[in-house]
């Protein structure tokens, strides 16, 4: 269960998965502690397999946005394989390639992808961490993820089209709201984006942290309003989206803390087998740091 505690960050994704993977990698454990090899692993592996499965996001794994075309996914998949395929990366690429293959298979099959999108849609409600991205109207990323992202405060936007004029690959005018919004982050070169930000007459284009972006874009979308009988129903969106984001993220943090606590109690009840698996994994991480030392030693002594 400890797996689900690992922080999942966009950028460190592949690394995080490799750590996950080491939990249910049967070879490594066997080759390393052949003598102490515990027969519990299979059952263990499965449990962890499930927790990893519900936690990992195929889109993040492939580094594509949720609305990517299958062509994009294909490209991303092949580019990643060119780095991690065992033919190129050696046997250490095996586990990661397995994950990539699985992600690719799901996302390339239309029915499986729909099903998968539904399942991570549920996750949005449940965990609400990084998964606002599949909200309709959110922006996609061109190129690598960067720490800063563009966000248009639609409440302030007057629909002047200045920004669309200067950086047409980044901004579009949403016809339903009459306001501009970001379609593709970094869709144009930096100069054009800078000009368009400057050109906004009401200064409603903001640079925000990437982590906040999903939340902000989520809140910009009108949400169904809780009604009382026939009164007060309809759609609403917060008047100040930044304040709302702050409040919501605070709530989420609390929720996460609660989850965290409940998971921690679960961890305390872990079986000896799980404890061993965990020890193995931490040993593995230590081993990695040792191999770094080894490499540098080798470089020195040739």
């Amino acid at each position, binding site marked *: 269960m400890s797996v689900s505690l690992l922080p999942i960050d966009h950028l460190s994704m592949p690394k995080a998965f490799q750590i996950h993977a080491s939990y249910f990698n*049967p070879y490594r454990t*066997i080759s390393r502690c052949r*003598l102490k090899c*515990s*027969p*519990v*692993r*299979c*059952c263990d592996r*499965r449990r962890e397999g499930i927790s990893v499965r519900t936690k990992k996001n195929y889109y993040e794994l492939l580094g594509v946005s949720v609305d990517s075309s299958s*062509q994009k996914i*294909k*490209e991303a998949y*092949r*580019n990643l*394989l*060119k780095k991690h*395929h*065992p*033919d*190129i990366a*050696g*046997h250490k*690429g*095996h586990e990661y*390639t*397995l994950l990539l*293959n699985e992600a*690719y*298979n799901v996302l390339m099959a239309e029915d499986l992808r729909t099903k998968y999108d539904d399942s991570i849609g549920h996750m949005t409600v449940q965990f609400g961490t990084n998964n606002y991205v599949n909200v309709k109207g959110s922006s996609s990323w061109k190129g690598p993820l960067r720490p800063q992202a563009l966000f248009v405060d639609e409440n302030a936007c007057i629909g002047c089209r200045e920004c669309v004029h200067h950086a047409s690959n980044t901004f579009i005018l949403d016809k339903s709201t009459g306001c501009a919004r970001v379609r593709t982050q970094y869709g144009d070169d930096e100069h054009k984006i800078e000009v368009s930000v400057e050109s906004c007459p009401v200064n409603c284009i903001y640079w925000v942290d990437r982590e906040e972006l999903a939340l902000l874009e989520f809140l910009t979308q009108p949400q169904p309003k809780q009604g009382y009988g026939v009164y007060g129903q309809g759609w609403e969106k917060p008047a100040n989206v930044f304040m709302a984001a702050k409040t919501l993220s605070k709530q989420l943090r609390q929720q996460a803390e609660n989850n965290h606590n409940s998971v921690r109690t679960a961890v305390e009840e872990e079986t000896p087998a799980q404890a061993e698996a965990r020890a193995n994994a931490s040993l593995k991480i230590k*081993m990695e740091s*040792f*191999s770094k030392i*080894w490499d540098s*030693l*080798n470089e020195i002594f040739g």
Partner: protein
Amino acid sequence: MIVYLFRVFDKQQLPYFFVKIQEWMNHNTLWLLIVKPLGRRKSSSAFAEIAIGIDIGTSQCSIAVWNGSQVELLKNTRNQKLMRSYVTFKDEVPSGGVSNQISHECEIFSGVAIFNMKRLIGRVDTDPVVHASKKLPFLVQTLDIGVRPFIAALVNNAWRSTTPEEVLAIFLVELRVMAELQLKKPIRNVVLTIPVSFSRFQLTRIERACAMAGLHILRLMPEPTAVALLYAQQQQQTVHENMGSGSEKNALIFNMGAGYCDVAVTATAGGVSQIKALAGAAIGGEDILQNMMQYLLPNSEGLFLNHRINEIKLLGLLRVATEDAIHRLSSQSSVQVDVDLGNGFKIYKVVTREEFEQVNLEVFEKCESLVTQCLRDSKVDIEDLTDVILVGGCSYIPKIRNVVMAVCKREELYKEINPLEAAVCGAALEGAVASGITDPFGSLDLLTIQVTPLGIGIRADGNSFVPIIPRNTTIPSRKELLFTTTHDNQTQALILVYEGEGTKVEENHLLGYFKIVGIPAAPKGIPEINVCMDIDASNVLRVFAGVVMPGTDQPPFMEVRMPTIDDGHGWCVEALNRTYGSTLDLVTVQKKM
């Protein structure tokens, strides 16, 4: 914490080190071992050991290597790039087609030489392909009991028994010696091309032959995927030259040699060749040849099977004449066969191309169905195919070209590839890539993403074959399935691993079996047995089986590398069935949605 650091300079010392370490383990509380074999470091340096590519064809072999800037085919002392695959047992020392100087073509067919080993390797004597091989001019005897056939060459009027593995190993040694002389360095790693339809058991036979020849197999590549890699490289180079967009290209590759017919569909972009589907069967030029021999000399069945010395000679002559006629029919619309076989057998016949196509109708129909099947499996529309590539000796036959072009609705075939050298070139490229060689001009910026040609699963639900990894799954792959017991308090279960496409186990190849013991006693259907299969990039299959049951401290778990059986026949399964009946059976657990 105490850390021991070893630098193992010689790989041969490794086993010794492990023994030492095991001794120490008993004395030290915590130890950590970092072993980094020197060989691995070497492969990243400039002096890396490059794996060579070998294409062992049913009739011809070739060997190629990445020479630093391109793929180079190695030639033997007679300046041949393509060497005939045969081994003669004429003298004390057997010699193969690499170095051997044959005085006359017919000598190969006089009984002293064994050839077509690729058609015979890893097959039992109930196999129809083995039965078809009984017409070859050396001894192939079958007793139809499901063991390996008796194969022998005629040496001094006595039959000298041999095996396809031995013949292949002798041949591979000659290839290795030839390459080592030319490259002036020892050769160990190879990439071999194999037919798509080879079972895993046949692959182990190939591995065995390589081990006998002192070669280590880095990759086994289905032949059309090797061609696909070469195609990927060519496409990438044209992109570089034209600075155009590297758009995705789909290609169908049809490879038909003397022994096997293989089809692959590949999607290529940016030097990555992603195999979409594979299909293959053991049909080839040999079948065409035998059909024609039968046609030219009807009622000769008995003659073929007696294997008396005169008749072997006669057969040899007929073979040479027929082969020649088939070759000429590729460019002429009719040929005249005029040959005196001796013993009162004379053939004088004019054969037209129509007759030839009629005689081999079944072969061509099979080719067509393979192409159709592969296209269907790949889910690539015919309109989306950029190129159709034909390689292999049989690709010169006009009918074959027409059949493939008709199925793919094409007027033209891809021309930039040498049909006889494409597979070995692809294998050499893969050898360089998998050895970690990089090229400053990006010529080795390649990757091939393989799929499994055959499904793998276990026996469950009675006599059914339950696939766990289906056909055309991208490898590396890992899949698992849950099974449960069929009897109350069943504490043991037998895992029988099969490979193939049939729904019943008898229709598939047995790969191996093992037993899970110590299942906690429970009513039937309660214990869950997880069977997981893992295929890595070098196509090694591992099967994991473990009991998943909450509340048990040490449930049984096993990891087995397949195949485990060493004889290729299913006798043992019959014995198991006799002894245990269905007491150790498993059934699949329906997935809870």
